[in-house]
């Protein structure tokens, strides 16, 4: 299937000489929720800005549903709704007026019924005649989402949608994104909250210092996440793992004082009971044990650190 967004060899160097994007290649599939994960300054916003037409790329090619974003910008941009990270609003306009303005800007015929539905879905209907400057931070964020949805986009970019919002609103936002996806909208969100990517995304891309260092199905990452380690602190150090225990693929650590067993916590049988029995048979005694699980956060931190 043709990707809905295709980015090929995209580079962006700012006039200051800063290389914000280094040869990015990325395909986003139609209908998926794609999370772009990365620390501050990694290039997330630049990548989104380039696809949406706000930042001029230095080189490379981007197509949206087959439309080149330069040559065929009208078709490409008509499909995209963007919710930027900063709360930039037309402070003195009313909610209704400003959302209707966005729809017009994208060349769509006025549709008050649709705008009403969007505002109701986002719990902004009561505020439709309020000036934007009077809205709370959370409401402003929802207002910006309403603007992005006003022209019925097929692709929605959410740049740090839950930065600085409270837990309840964050849950609302996640529900909204899921509802949108059910209607067939492709969603690309950037975040530096691992939890958010974990909760929402179908696929995860990790970007750091302008390089896309990993793009993987979330399920795949979760499989790695599902791996746990059991560490046994031995009463007496071992020189090597006894041959009888070879099947467990144990590792010796801490100068032979620790035995480390990696297992899949999601499997029906983890092998822990059998291992402990076999250890007893082999005469290996331990004074303490602990289990640990590598989180997506650790994977992420390691990935980012390895590249530094």
């Amino acid at each position, binding site marked *: 299937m043709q990707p809905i967004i295709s980015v090929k060899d995209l580079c962006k160097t*700012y*006039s200051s000489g800063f290389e914000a994007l280094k040869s990015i290649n990325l395909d986003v599939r139609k209908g998926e929720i794609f999370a772009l994960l990365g620390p501050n300054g990694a290039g997330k916003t630049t990548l989104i*800005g380039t696809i*949406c*037409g*706000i*930042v*001029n790329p230095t080189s490379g090619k981007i197509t949206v549903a087959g439309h080149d974003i330069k040559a065929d*910008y*009208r*078709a*490409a*941009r*008509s499909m*995209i709704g*963007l919710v*930027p990270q*900063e709360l*930039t*609003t*037309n*402070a*003195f*306009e009313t909610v209704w*007026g400003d959302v209707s*303005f*966005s*729809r*017009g*800007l*994208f*060349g*769509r*015929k006025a549709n008050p019924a649709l705008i009403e539905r969007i505002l109701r879905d986002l719990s902004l209907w009561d505020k439709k005649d309020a000036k934007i400057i009077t809205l709370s931070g959370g409401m402003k964020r929802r207002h910006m989402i309403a*603007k992005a949805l006003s022209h019925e986009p097929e692709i929605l970019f959410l740049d740090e949608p839950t930065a600085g919002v409270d837990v309840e609103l964050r849950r609302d936002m996640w529900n909204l994104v899921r509802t949108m996806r059910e209607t067939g909208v492709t969603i690309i969100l950037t975040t530096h909250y691992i939890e958010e990517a974990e909760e929402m995304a179908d696929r995860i891309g990790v970007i750091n210092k302008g390089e896309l260092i990993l793009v993987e199905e979330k399920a795949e990452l979760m499989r790695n996440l599902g791996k746990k380690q059991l560490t046994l602190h031995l009463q007496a150090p071992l020189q090597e793992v006894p041959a009888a225990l070879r099947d467990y693929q144990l590792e010796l650590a801490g100068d032979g004082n620790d035995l480390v067993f990696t297992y899949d916590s999601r499997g029906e049988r983890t092998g822990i009971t059998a291992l402990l029995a076999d250890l007893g048979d082999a005469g290996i005694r331990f004074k303490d044990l602990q289990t640990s699980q590598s989180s997506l956060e650790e994977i992420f931190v390691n990935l980012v650190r390895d590249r530094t």
Partner: protein
Amino acid sequence: MNWRAVKAIYIFEMTRTFRTLLQSIVSPVISTSLYFVVFGTAIGSRINAIDGVDYGAFIVPGLIMLTLLTQSIANASFGIYFPKFSGTIYEVLSAPVSYLEVVLSYVGAAATKSIMIGLIILATASMFVSLRIDHPVFMLLFLVLTAVTFSLFGFIIGIWADGFEKLQLIPLLVVTPLTFLGGSFYSIDMLPPFWQTVSLFNPVVYLVSGFRWSFFSTADVGVGVSLAMTLAFLTACLAIVAWIFRTGYRLKT
């Protein structure tokens, strides 16, 4: 053409104008009325008629031009600078609108506003002095061309400016002196020959002269030259705007 976008931006800008009615329309009308009181009635009654035109009436086209230029620049520069400053420009840049549509809507709204002000001042002036308009079609043509040209110029300043200070810099240091020295309050025939020649390098001279000709059929320079110079300035502004959008200068990083 994405006419709906043009309409959306145009209405957005005009709504802003009417929301700030006092600042947008009432204040230029009051300040111009003060010019009439001071120059037209108080001082003007002691000045002889110029080219057979009573001094109070003679300054009307110049005063309208003065306001038209400053208002066109102020409206258009603020109209595009403010979204840049507040960040809301992202929406226009990411929308399926062409550069032509962006210019048409922003400059169109700024020009509309200054033409409205120009006409209001004309109406106000006619309460102070008796006016005649010999060539009404040319009067409107000069009014519209000047408003559009200087709104384009303002648009360029708004994009170039990266602070409120710069937004004021060119209007204050360049446009106001050129307008005052461009024959708004006098005929350049009244100047010594050397300064007459210098004045011919001032583009505002051509605007005021052409505009005054449409009222009283008298002009410092030929009306054809005035029209040609106005069109030349318009073309220059259009070329700069086209370059800005082609390169993304100060709009896209």
